[in-house]
């Protein structure tokens, strides 16, 4: 695909250098993957990750007529023991990022370094070891559990693929331990998914994610299919498990209040690009990108009085098609600040010039030419 080359490669100039590991043999690679990472060190480093899905025409002689640019050059770090929240509207590419990190999809370009090794290039035993350490919890607990398998089989299935984690005789006991950890009765091991409620099913999904003692869990909208009163239970459980097992979460959701509650850092995505990234305080209290501000102001606040004092930014129109994104800044078609510069020049994800060197929470990475602080969460 030729048009990738036209994109500026270094879209995020100020991410840290990756300390890569050059493994001569597969055994060395596996050893590096199994090595522990201390708290606060980067465990997963994503650099200029790109995923384009080809659009083809014709039946017999397929020719490519374009590409859906689902993920178009994003970079971020995930540190050991932290929760990185990714928010964005549907179609912005957040679930594709999850799939790329799981190596369920092959990246078109870019690298994903797990402990210094590019997992997009790994294969064989080394890839298997990576996959053991990165697990996923899916959105819909109704379709992500096989209705014909018992809970014990579902949670124990990872051990079939990675038998070194638990010898055959121990598996049943391990599964029962896991059920206990996620707050389900260990005696339920022989039940089927339909005998559980949505919240309980999501606990089963989490138990399956935990089975192989992973270091990273990627949660793709883990609570959005659940009832409000049950969401809080699952969120609390996830917080507890993180402390207990020193997990790193990549928490993908569209519910901004839940993301804020659980995340240490938050990244805001728009049309395959990262619009703004920073700590939860920087993003929620001092957003500088207009899209983040609009997103935050659109969240319905369950308090009529706080709402009345708030300025609401209502964006016009829909998200443009990722097959044909706008030139320059992707958000410019819906942005109220857009000027000519926005159509021609793509803003880089960096600390904006005006905030550089300032000791202010507004000094975080934001991909906007006219980044400006605006408090949209609190009443005026």
């Amino acid at each position, binding site marked *: 695909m030729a048009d990738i080359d036209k994109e500026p490669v270094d879209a995020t100039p100020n991410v840290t250098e990756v300390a890569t590991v050059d493994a001569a043999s597969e055994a060395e690679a596996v050893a590096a993957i199994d090595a522990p990472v201390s708290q606060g060190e980067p465990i997963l480093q994503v650099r200029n990750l790109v995923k384009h899905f080809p659009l083809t025409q014709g039946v017999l002689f397929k020719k490519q007529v374009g590409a859906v640019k689902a993920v178009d050059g994003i970079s971020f770090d995930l540190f050991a023991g932290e929760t990185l929240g990714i928010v964005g509207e549907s179609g912005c590419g957040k679930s594709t990022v999850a799939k790329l990190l799981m190596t369920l999809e092959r990246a078109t370009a870019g690298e994903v370094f797990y402990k210094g090794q590019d997992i997009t290039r790994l294969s064989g035993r080394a890839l298997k070891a990576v996959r053991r350490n990165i697990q996923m919890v899916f959105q819909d607990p109704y379709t992500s559990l096989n209705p014909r398998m018992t809970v014990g089989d579902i949670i124990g299935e990872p051990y079939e693929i990675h038998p070194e984690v638990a010898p055959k005789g121990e598996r049943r006991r391990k599964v029962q331990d896991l059920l206990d950890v996620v707050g389900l009765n260990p005696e339920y091991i022989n039940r089927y998914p339909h005998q559980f409620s949505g919240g309980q099913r999501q606990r089963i999904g989490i138990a399956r994610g935990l089975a192989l003692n992973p270091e990273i869990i990627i949660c793709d909208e883990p609570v959005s299919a659940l009832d*409000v*009163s049950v969401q809080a239970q699952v*969120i*609390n459980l996830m917080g507890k498990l993180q402390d207990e097992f020193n997990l790193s979460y990549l928490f993908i959701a569209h519910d901004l209040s839940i993301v804020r509650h659980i995340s240490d850092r938050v990244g805001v995505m728009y049309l395959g690009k990262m619009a703004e990234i920073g700590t939860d305080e920087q993003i929620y209290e001092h957003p500088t990108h207009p899209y983040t501000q609009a997103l935050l102001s659109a*969240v319905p606040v*369950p308090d009529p009085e706080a709402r009345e004092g708030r300025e*609401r930014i209502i964006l*016009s129109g829909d998200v443009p098609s990722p097959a044909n994104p706008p030139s320059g800044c992707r958000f410019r078609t819906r942005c109220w600040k857009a000027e000519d510069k926005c159509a021609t020049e793509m803003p880089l994800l960096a600390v904006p010039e005006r905030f550089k060197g300032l000791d202010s929470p507004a000094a975080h990475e934001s991909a906007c030419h006219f980044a400006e602080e605006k408090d949209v969460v609190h009443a005026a």
Partner: protein
Amino acid sequence: MTTIDKTAEVPSARSGDDHVGPLLEVRDLHVEFHTRDGVAKAVNGVNYSVNAGETLAVLGESGSGKSVTAQAVMGILDMPPGRIPQGEIFFRGQDMLKMSYEERRSIRGQKIAMIFQDALSSLNPVLTVGYQLGEMFRVHQGLSKKEARAKAIGLMDQVKIPAAAARVSDYPHQFSGGMRQRIMIAMALALEPDLIIADEPTTALDVTVQAQVMDLLAELQREYNMGLILITHDLGVVADVADKIAVMYAGRIVETSPVHEIYKRPAHPYTKGLLESIPRLDQKGQELFAIKGLPPNLLNVPSGCAFNPRCVMAQDICRTDIPPLRPVTERDGTDLVGRGSACHFWKETIHG
């Protein structure tokens, strides 16, 4: 049981009939479903009323009976397995449950319209949106295809679909989620009904689009002075648009209130728990308050108050006596207009 009193000043009905009183009044409605495993009591004595120009939000989790009540009002309940053993639904003073099939059919769509949650599955994928919008005019008003198409374009303009004339012959899949929901709204508006029932109209949408759609709905409601029943589980959406709220749990209304009051001082432990369990953008806590346990199985609703197994305040009386929806008063006994709570201990809940 009390019905919800109106709180906001409401302009008079726009059509010229002389009926006084609420536009829609549901009285002691029961709905049950006969299944192989037994009788599921989905709705157990619901009372509510809506006036013209007013928005009633019905709030509840899945299985609380909020959608079933709406389907009974609309007359689109699957019967069997559904059954309405008792209750009355008055529309402009007439009990719709006693009407003939033809009479009900003339009300449905023309007087009461419904907006469904999932626009993609509620629109027919093999017919153009223009055809589907025009169907309302062809069937109810006997217009020709050409006239109906012109009307459909007008409707699409009204719900702010850009380039309506060009898009009228597009199919549902060619529209985005927000646009599809606009088409659903246009369809509900087509015959200028007196009452719109919106069942989770924005649940499938993104927040930025949700704000657009809710704004549009509120604007059109003002313009036509319609009554609106908004069914939702999202406490945030309710705060933005509703005039009054009815909270449902296991087929009963457990609390009613004007919108502002409920967030400040909930009078039912369930409402209180719900409000405390949502993380708020402007306050980050350590652990969320979680209502323990699960919503009840409708085949086997707990005795007494249905919420008692999950309630922090439950005592013996809660396990034996079903609490009626009582009016809620200030500490000194002054009436709080429009407020009611079905809890034995509402005083303790609201006044601490």
